[in-house]
C-alpha cells in the first residue's frame, strides 16, 4: 500500500517545491534546520500520526468510492503539505550527510537562502504568485487543527488493515485477519462472510484459528475491493459518513442506525443470487 501512496505524493512534492523558496532549504545543515523544525514540530507531530495511519489504511488507498471520499478525502488534502515538509527534511538530512564535502560550497547559498527559509511558513511567501487552492486549503486545515481539532475531522478514525491473504494449496485462499477486520467494522463475522462469499461467488468457512478459508484464488486487493463495498453498504452512515453504526434486524429487514447523527436506513439483504455450477458436469441443475 505504501508503495502505491508514494508515487502519488512524490510528484507533488517536486512540483510544489520547485516554484517556492523551499528548494534551497534542502542543502542546509542540521543545525539550521532545527530552528525551522521547532516551528513546524507541532504541526508535524499531529500530522505524522495522520500520515502513518494513512499508510496502514487499506480501504482508502486505491481510487474509489465512498469510504475514500469520507475517510481519505479530507485526509489527502491535509496530508499533502505536511508530508512535503517531512520529505524535505528527509532530503535535507540525507543530502547533508552524503554531501559532507560539498557542504562548504553550499554554505554560501545557504546564507542567502536562509533569510527566506526561516520565514517561509507558507510556500507562497516571498513571491508575487497567486496562492494555490491546495495551499490555502492546507493553511485553513492547519489553523483549524490548532484551534478546533474536532472540526478538522480529526475524530477517531476507523483504520482498516489491509487484508492478509495466504494460499492454501492451489485452490483455496486463506483470509488471515478476517476476524480483526470484522472487529474493526463492528460487524458479525457471519454477516461479513456472507457478503464476501456472495460477492466472490464461491464457498468458504472459518477454520480453527478463525481465519476465513475460501475456495478459489484471490488476491488481497480482491478482498479489499469487496470490503470497501461492504463498508459502504453496511457500515458507513450515508448522512455523516461515520462508521460508528449499528446494524440490526427488525421485521426481517436489516437497518443501519448511525450512532453519530442518529439517522437510519434500510440496507439490502445479502443475496448470493445465481450461482452457476462450476466443476463436475454430472451434477447439473
Amino acid at each position, binding site marked *: 500500500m505504501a508503495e502505491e501512496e508514494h508515487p502519488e505524493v512524490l510528484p507533488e512534492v517536486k512540483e510544489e517545491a520547485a516554484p517556492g523558496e523551499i528548494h534551497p532549504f534542502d542543502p542546509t545543515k542540521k543545525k539550521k534546520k532545527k530552528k525551522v523544525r521547532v516551528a513546524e514540530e507541532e504541526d508535524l507531530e499531529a500530522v505524522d500520526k495522520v500520515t502513518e495511519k494513512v499508510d496502514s489504511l487499506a480501504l482508502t488507498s486505491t481510487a474509489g468510492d465512498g469510504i475514500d471520499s469520507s475517510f481519505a478525502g479530507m485526509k489527502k488534502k491535509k496530508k499533502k503539505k505536511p508530508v512535503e515538509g517531512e520529505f524535505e527534511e528527509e532530503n535535507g538530512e540525507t543530502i547533508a550527510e552524503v554531501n559532507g564535502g560539498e557542504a562548504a560550497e553550499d554554505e554560501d547559498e545557504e546564507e542567502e537562502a536562509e533569510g527566506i527559509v526561516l520565514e517561509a511558513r507558507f510556500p507562497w511567501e516571498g513571491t508575487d504568485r497567486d496562492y494555490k487552492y491546495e495551499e490555502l486549503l492546507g493553511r485553513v486545515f492547519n489553523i483549524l487543527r490548532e484551534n478546533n481539532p474536532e472540526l478538522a475531522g480529526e475524530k477517531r478514525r476507523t483504520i482498516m488493515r489491509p487484508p492478509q491473504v495466504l494460499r492454501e494449496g492451489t485452490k483455496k485462499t486463506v483470509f488471515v485477519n478476517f476476524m480483526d477486520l470484522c472487529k474493526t467494522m463492528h460487524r458479525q463475522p457471519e454477516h461479513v462472510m456472507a457478503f464476501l462469499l456472495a460477492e466472490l461467488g*464461491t464457498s468458504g468457512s472459518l477454520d480453527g484459528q478463525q481465519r476465513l478459508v475460501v475456495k*478459489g484464488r484471490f488476491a488481497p486487493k*480482491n478482498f479489499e475491493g469487496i470490503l470497501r463495498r461492504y463498508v459502504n453498504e453496511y457500515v458507513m452512515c450515508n448522512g455523516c459518513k461515520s462508521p460508528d453504526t449499528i446494524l440490526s434486524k427488525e421485521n426481517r429487514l436489516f437497518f443501519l442506525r448511525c450512532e453519530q447523527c442518529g439517522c437510519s436506513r434500510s440496507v439490502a439483504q445479502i443475496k448470493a*443470487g*445465481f450461482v452457476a455450477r462450476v466443476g463436475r458436469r454430472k451434477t447439473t*441443475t
Partner: protein
Amino acid sequence: MSDLDIQIPGAFDPFAEANAEDSGAGSKDYVHVRVQQRNGRKSLTTVQGLKKEFNYNKILKDFKKEFCCNGTVVQDPELGQVIQLQGDQRKNVSQFLVQAGVVKKDLIKIHGF
C-alpha cells in the same frame, strides 16, 4: 414498507421474506452481473435479472458475437433464466446492455472482486 406495518410483530409470516425482498433497499429490478472463478485462470460471467420480456437467446447471441465467447441460457428454478458467458465479461456486458438500451446504467449491479 407499508406491507410491514400490517404485520403483527412476532407472528410468523411465511411471506415475510418475499415481502422483505420487495421492500428492502436495493430491490429495484437490478440486473446482477457476477463473476465466478473456475479452475485455473478461467472464469464465468452470469447475467441475472433481465426483464422477462426480452428474448434471452437473442441477447445471448449478440453477447456471444460481440465478446467472442461462448455462453448459454440457464433455467434456474427460482431466478428464472440466467445468461452464462465464458470468461470475465462483466465490463463488456454492462457496456453492451447500456449501449443497446436494454437496461439503464444505474440498474446494473456488478458483483465480484
